[in-house]
């Protein structure tokens, strides 16, 4: 029987982390799990590596005492979002790590961390050319089809701005 004050998380390779449940009150995934299967020993977070989960839990610990309203939509750019100096560790990490944290935040459904990482990701994309973005993420190859759509979408946004 698990201790209601603590929760044990198991990562993809079987590494376990036991933290106070209060840390994870912003994780919708964990809260749903506690409601439905809270009597089990440990919660599996299969797609997260120990290193990333460690970082996520650090974030949760830092923000465990926060009293701000839970974020309904992590990607609502109309809401003012001020950088928190406690999160500087996330802002300083390499691109590939940041991407892993973004995905982990999404898996664990922690809107505040999704917002932080997505926003940091976006700020790194700002001002970069398509080639530079490709170099950053190395996604699949540019195909001829995309050259066409370049022409099609060329100017619409040229003078415009995203809806904000």
């Amino acid at each position, binding site marked *: 029987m698990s201790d209601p004050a603590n929760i044990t998380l198991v990562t*993809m*390779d*079987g*590494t376990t982390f*036991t*933290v*106070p449940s209060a840390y994870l009150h912003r994780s919708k995934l964990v809260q749903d799990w506690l409601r439905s299967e809270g009597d089990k020993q440990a919660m599996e977070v*299969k797609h997260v*590596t*120990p*290193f990333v989960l*460690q970082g996520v*839990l*650090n974030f949760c610990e830092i923000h465990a005492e926060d009293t701000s309203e839970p974020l309904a939509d*992590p*990607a609502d750019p109309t809401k003012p979002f001020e950088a928190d100096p406690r999160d500087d*560790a996330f802002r300083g*990490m*390499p691109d*590939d*790590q940041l*991407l*892993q944290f*973004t*995905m982990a935040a*999404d898996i664990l459904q922690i809107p505040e961390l999704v917002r932080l990482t*997505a926003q940091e*990701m*976006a*700020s790194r*994309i700002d001002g*970069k*050319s*398509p080639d530079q*973005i*490709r170099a950053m*993420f*190395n*996604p*699949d*190859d*540019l195909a001829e*089809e*995309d050259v*066409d*759509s*370049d*022409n*099609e*979408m*060329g*100017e*619409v*946004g*040229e*003078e*415009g*701005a*995203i*809806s904000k």
Partner: protein
Amino acid sequence: MMFSNLRLSQPPATQPNNNKPQQQQILAAQQHHNSSPLPTQVHAAMFFAPSPPDIKAPPHSPTKSSLSLSTTSPQPDALALAVAQTIPSELILHIFKYVTTTRDLRNCLLACRAWCHCGVELFWHKPVFYNPYPLVRMICVLGLVNPTFPYALFVRRLNLSNLSEDVSDSILARLAGCERLERITLAGCRKLTDSGLCKLLEGGTVVQTVVGDDNATPPNSTTTIAIPQGALVPGCGATLIAMDLSDLTELTDVAILAIAERCPRLQGLNLSN
């Protein structure tokens, strides 16, 4: 630092590289790209300095073999490659929503096909115009016979009040293909009359453009041939929620009746002046 004691087992050297389960594709990809000896220790505490005192690392290595983290990976690019291809599309969209300018978003869409599919609708969601040329270009793209994406369906909000002197009935009529348009602001577009507005709402036959032979050239007035093929579009009256028609002095009851008939979802209508 307890966490730094954590050790992950190293996969046996004889283990085949290509039969990892689906959920481990990130690692599998890394392994695939990474033939050098694998790191065995996780230096997590290196980055996140004080680890919580109550986080426990298991005393024994996990039974399942796994690779280590990118901090210790000699080829972080290989991992980035794998990760970038496994980001869920809604997460890419979250990131795109924080990208500052439309130009940055456009650069993202041009970076790879998957991202383009993901962000193109956001890109077209709310076109904003400060001079007429992009509007003409957009109308050309909307009229393409075989567009890469159904761009007209992506347009949800339009504000043409910056171009009030240039918006004519014929321009408005060619926007009738935006059949999911929800909000349109035409404030001050004094040239508009009942005819243009009715065509926008009711649809009908819309001129299509065919890009010339040289597909690499952007569609503009010199390379496109307009042929009246007659694409039948339903008009955008059905989805409109709000219209700002203030200062449209030429409008008469005809337009108002058309709005009443064609716009069942309309909640806001500005007809001042």
